[in-house]
C-alpha cells in the first residue's frame, strides 16, 4: 500500500506503525510519531494499523528557538 510519510508518498509492506519504523530505518526510541495529525504514543505503535493513504509523521529532536 501507499502512505504519506513525512510529506512523501512511499510504498510499504508494513501493516503497523511499529513495522513501518523498522522498515524505513528509523531509530524507534529517538522519534515521536503522529498518524493523520494525532499523536501515537510509543506503546501504541504496535497496535496501530496502517491503511492506504494515511499520513504519518515521524519527528526527531532538532534545533529550535
Amino acid at each position, binding site marked *: 500500500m501507499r502512505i504519506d510519510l*513525512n*510529506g512523501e508518498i512511499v510504498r510499504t509492506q508494513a501493516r503497523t506503525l511499529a513495522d513501518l519504523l523498522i522498515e524505513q530505518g*528509523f531509530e524507534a526510541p*529517538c*522519534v*515521536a*510519531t*503522529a498518524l493523520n*495529525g*494525532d*499523536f501515537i*504514543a*510509543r506503546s501504541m505503535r504496535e497496535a496501530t494499523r496502517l491503511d492506504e493513504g494515511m499520513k504519518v*509523521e*515521524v*519527528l*526527531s*529532536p*532538532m*534545533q*529550535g*528557538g
Partner: protein
Amino acid sequence: MFYGVDLTSRLMLGTAQYPSPAVLLEAIEASGAEIITVSLRREGAAGAAFRNILSESRCRLLPNTAGCHTAREAVTTARMAREVFGTSWIKLEVIGHADTLQPDPFALVEAARVLCAEGFEVFPYTTEDLIVGEKLLEAGCKVLMPWGAPIGSGQGLRNPEGLRTMRAHFAGIPLVVDAGIGAPSQAAQAMEMGLDAILLNTAVAKAVDPAAMARAFGRAIQAGREAFEAGLMPRRDMACASTPVFGLAELA
C-alpha cells in the same frame, strides 16, 4: 521560579541557526543558560550531531511548538515532544500571522487548556494583552511569555509601557520576554523593569561571535536584574544638581 524549578541564570537560549554544533555548544556554555529550547522536526542531516549536544549540555530542555498555526497542531506537537524529550515543559506557540509571527491568542488559550489538563507545564508565547494573560492563568499556566517584538526581528521592546503594566498586573507570576530581543541593552531594559527572564535565539546565533554575544547577554541580564533589585531612582523632567549647593563659594 518556573513550575517549582529554581534557576541561577535568567537567560533561556534558543538552539537554532548557529553556524555549527560546536559554536552552539560554546554559546550555551558562555551564556550561563540553564534552559535551552528545542523543537521537533522531520529528521535532517544534522540530527544525530544535535542529539549529542543535548546530552552534553546538561541544560534543562524546553521543547517548543514552533510553526504550529492551530491549537490541534500545537497539542499534537506538545504530546510528541513530551514523549521524545521526557519533560512536561512545553513552550506553547500558536502562530496567528505568517509575517509578524504574532501569537493567535484564541488558539493559544484553547491549546493551553487542553495541555494543562493533561499535566503539561505550559510556557505560553503571548502578547502583552492582560486579558489573554488572565485566560492563560485560568487555563492553568504558571508562567507567561510576552513578546518583546516579532520573532527574529531584533527590535527590542516594542511596547515597554505595555510590559510595565503587565508586570504590575501579574505580580508574582514569572514573566519571560520571549522574542524580538536584538541587543544586550534591550535585555537589560526588560530586566530593569522587573521582568523575570529573557528567552532569545537569533541575536546570539547570528552574531559575528555567538559565544562572545552569549556571554554579553548573560552579563546584561544579570546587571539588569541587580539594578531592579537595587531599586532605580525615579525619573525627573528637570535637572537637579547632585553636588551640594551648601558651602558654595561666592566668586562672582
